[in-house]
C-alpha cells in the first residue's frame, strides 16, 4: 500500500517538491516566530498598563484568602462595607480551601498576576518577605496610614521579617490543647489544666486511656508547634537568626518523651496518630473520637466544635504557659508591585481598626488585633465555643512570653521533615536518637 498521502496529494511528484519546500519552510518559520512573539507582545502590552494611574479614580483591588464559606461571608460583608464608605474602591474577591492555597498564590505571583492583598501565615511570611514579593509597611505605620497603636506589641513584632513590617496580623491565636469534656465527665476523670507539666499530662492521659478505652492524648511529637512550645520551655527556640534554635539532643529528648508516652499507652497507635497529624480540622482525633485531646490553635475551637456533638474544653499546652506567645494566626499582606498600594494598605487598616468591620469579622481569623475592639467583640460574642476560646486566650495573654522570630525560609520543609522523623519513631522504624539525627540533617539542608 501507499504510505500516508502527503498534503500536496493532487500535484505531480518530482522536481516541484524541491521548489515547494522553501516557501513551506518559510511559512513555518513565520508561524513559529509569530507564536513566539505573541506572548511577548501581549506581555509587553500588559506591562505598559502597570504604570498608568486609573484616570477616573476608580480602583479595583484583588484580594485572596483561604478559608471556608463562613469566612467568605464575613469577609465579603466587611469588604462591602468598605466599598460603601469608599465608593471608588471595588474588590475582586477570590478564596479557596487552605490545601492548595499557597500553590495558587505562588503560581499567581510567578505569572506576574498576584493579588493586591493576600492572606498569609507565619509558615510562608518569611519566604515571601525574603523575596521582596511583599510590600514593607513600615513607612505606612510611621505615617499613621496604618494604625497599629492598639495592637499588642508582640503581635505587631511577629509580623516583622528582617526589619521590615511584612504583614499585619489579621487575628491573634495561641497554642491550645483541646479535650473532650463529655468523655471525661462521663468517666469521672479530671479535666487537664493550664500549667500541668508534660509528665503530669502524660500520666493523666494514661489514666484516661485505662478508664475510657479512648487513647488519652494525641502524640504531638510530629507537631512543630508543640515542639516549639516545649523547646521554649527548655530555654531554646525553633529558630535563632538564620539557624536552628535547637540541637539533636533536644529533639532526641522530645522523641523519647513521647516514646515513653506511647509505651505507657497514653497515645493512640501510630496509624491513628498519623491520621491526626493531618492539618485538616475534621480529622483531628478529638472530633473523630479517636483520642481525648488534640493539639491545635485556640481559635480553632469553634470549628472543631462544629464537627462533634461532644462538649470540648481548651487549655494551654503543658509546661510553663509563658512559653506561648501572641501569635498572628494569619496576616494581611500587600503585593509589592501592586499599582494601588496605598488603597490596599488602607483596606488592611480598615479591616483591623474599623469598629463595624471588626465586629463583622468577629473572631473567625483569631482574636481581633486591635485591643480596644477585641474587648468590644468579646462582649458581644454569643457562640459558646467562641466565647470559651476568647476567655482562655485572654487568660493566657496575661502570661504570654515575648514573641519568637517569624519562622525562616525553609520552614515548610522543616515542618514536613519533623512529621517524617517523628512518624519513623512512632512506627518503630527508628529509635528516638536515630529519628532526631535524621531530622537535624534534613533541617540543615532545608534552611541552607
Amino acid at each position, binding site marked *: 500500500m501507499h504510505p500516508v498521502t502527503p498534503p500536496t496529494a493532487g500535484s505531480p511528484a518530482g522536481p516541484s517538491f524541491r521548489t515547494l519546500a522553501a516557501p513551506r519552510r518559510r511559512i513555518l518559520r513565520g508561524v513559529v516566530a509569530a*507564536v513566539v512573539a505573541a506572548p511577548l507582545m501581549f506581555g509587553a502590552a500588559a506591562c505598559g498598563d502597570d504604570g498608568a494611574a486609573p484616570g477616573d479614580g476608580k480602583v479595583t483591588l484583588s484580594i485572596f484568602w483561604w478559608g471556608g464559606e463562613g469566612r467568605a461571608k464575613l469577609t465579603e460583608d466587611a469588604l462591602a462595607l468598605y466599598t460603601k464608605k469608599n465608593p471608588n474602591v471595588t474588590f475582586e474577591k477570590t478564596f479557596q480551601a487552605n490545601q492548595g492555597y499557597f500553590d495558587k498564590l505562588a503560581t499567581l505571583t510567578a505569572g506576574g498576576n498576584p493579588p493586591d492583598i493576600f492572606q498569609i501565615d507565619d509558615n510562608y511570611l518569611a519566604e515571601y518577605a525574603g523575596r521582596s514579593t511583599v510590600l514593607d509597611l513600615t513607612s505606612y505605620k510611621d505615617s499613621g496610614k496604618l494604625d497599629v497603636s492598639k495592637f499588642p506589641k508582640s503581635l505587631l513584632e511577629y509580623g516583622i521579617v528582617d526589619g521590615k513590617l511584612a504583614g499585619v496580623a489579621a487575628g491573634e491565636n495561641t497554642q491550645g490543647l483541646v479535650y473532650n469534656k463529655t468523655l471525661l465527665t462521663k468517666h469521672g476523670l479530671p479535666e487537664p489544666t493550664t500549667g500541668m507539666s508534660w509528665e503530669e499530662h502524660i500520666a493523666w492521659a494514661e489514666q484516661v486511656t485505662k478508664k475510657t478505652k479512648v487513647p488519652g492524648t494525641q502524640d504531638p511529637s510530629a507537631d512543630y508547634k508543640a515542639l516549639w512550645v516545649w523547646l521554649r520551655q527548655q530555654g531554646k527556640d525553633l529558630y535563632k537568626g538564620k539557624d536552628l534554635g535547637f540541637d539533636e539532643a533536644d529533639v532526641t529528648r522530645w522523641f523519647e518523651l513521647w516514646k515513653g508516652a506511647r509505651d505507657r499507652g497514653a497515645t493512640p497507635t501510630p496509624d491513628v496518630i*498519623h491520621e491526626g497529624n493531618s492539618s485538616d480540622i475534621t480529622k483531628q482525633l478529638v472530633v473523630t473520637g479517636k483520642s481525648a485531646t488534640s493539639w491545635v490553635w485556640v481559635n480553632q475551637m469553634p470549628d472543631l466544635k462544629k464537627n462533634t456533638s461532644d462538649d470540648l474544653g481548651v487549655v494551654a499546652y503543658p509546661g510553663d504557659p509563658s512559653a506561648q506567645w501572641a501569635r498572628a494566626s494569619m496576616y494581611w499582606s500587600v503585593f509589592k508591585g501592586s499599582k494601588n498600594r496605598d488603597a490596599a494598605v488602607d483596606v488592611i487598616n480598615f479591616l483591623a481598626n474599623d469598629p463595624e468591620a471588626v465586629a463583622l469579622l468577629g473572631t473567625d481569623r483569631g482574636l481581633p488585633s486591635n485591643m480596644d475592639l477585641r474587648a468590644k467583640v468579646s462582649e458581644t460574642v454569643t457562640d459558646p465555643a467562641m466565647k470559651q476560646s476568647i476567655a482562655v486566650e485572654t487568660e493566657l495573654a496575661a502570661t504570654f512570653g515575648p514573641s519568637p522570630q517569624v519562622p525562616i525560609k525553609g520552614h515548610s520543609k522543616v515542618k514536613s521533615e519533623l512529621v517524617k522523623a517523628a512518624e519513623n519513631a512512632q*512506627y518503630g522504624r527508628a529509635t528516638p536518637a536515630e529519628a532526631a539525627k535524621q531530622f537535624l540533617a534534613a533541617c540543615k539542608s532545608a534552611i541552607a
Partner: protein
Amino acid sequence: MALTTAPGRTGPTRSARPHASRRGAGRDRHGEGLAGYVFLSPWLIGLMGVTAIPMLLSLYLSFTNYDILTPLSEVQWVGLANYERMFTADPSYWHAVRVTLTFALVAVPLKLAAALGVALLLNRAWRGVGLFRGLFYLPSLLGGSVALAIVWVNMFNRDGAFNSFLAIFGIEGLPWVNDPEWALETLMLLAIWQFGAPMVIFLAGLKQVPSELYEAASVDGAGRVSQFWHVTLPMLSPVIFFNLVLETINGFQGFTAAFVLSNGTGGPVDSTLMYTLKLYISGFTDLEMGYASAMAWVFLIVIALITTVFFSTGRFWVHYSDGER
C-alpha cells in the same frame, strides 16, 4: 488540478506537464499550504504556548535557582548544581525513585495480566457478556479521579470496609493506607483494579485474531493452552506491546492517588512518595522550582529511554500478521 490522478504513479503526466502550469500549481499549493497552517494554528499555538515553550523554559530553569516568587529576570544560573544535588545530596530523591520503580514494576505487569485475563474471559459469546464488559470497564472511566482515591482511603482504613470484610473471617486487618509497609501496595491495588482501558484494547485485539488459525491449530491437535501460547499471544503481541508502553508511562506518572492518600505529603513516612509527588512538593511546597524542573527533565529522559528500550526489543517478540515488523 489533477486531484483525481493518483500521485506518483503516472509517469507520463510528470514529463508532459508544461513548465508554466507547474508554477501555477506551485502558487496554488502555496495557498493550500498556508490554509493548512491556518487550520492547524489552534493546535500549533496550543503546542507552542502550552507545551513546547514552557518545556524549553523549564529546561532553562533546571539550570537556575528559580523559586517561583523571584521574577524570571532575576533568576541566577547555577549550572549543574540542581542535577548534582539530585544525584548526590538528596536521599529522598533516590527514595522517590525506588518507590516509583517498585510501583511500576509490580503494578504494570499485574494490571496487564488482569486486563488480558479478563479480556480472554469476556471474549466468549456468553449471555450478558456486554454487561460484564461494561462493568469491568467502569473503574477506568473514573480514571485518576480524586473521588475514587478518597473512596480507596476510606475502604482501606483501620476501620474501613475491607477490614470489616476480613473481620467476617475473624482476621484482624491492618491500617493499610496508614501503614508505611502497606500504603504503596494499597496504591498498586488501586492501579491494578483500573485495568479497564487495556482490557478493552485487548478485547479488540482478540477479535482480530482470525478464527482459521484456531481451527488449523486444533486440526493439528493443539489444546487450549497450546493455542493460547502459539496463536493468541503472538497474534496479540502488537496490542500487548502497545498496552505495555502506554501503561508503563502511566505507571511512572502516577500522582493523583498518592497525592490524595497522603494529603500531598507522600506519607506515611514517605512510603507513597512517587516521583511526580516529590517533584510537586519540591516545586510548590518547598518553592524550589529550578530543582523541580531538573527532576522533571531527568524523568522525561528516563521515560524516553525506557520507551526506546521497549521499541528496540519489540522486534524480537512483536509479530505483525502481515509479515512486516
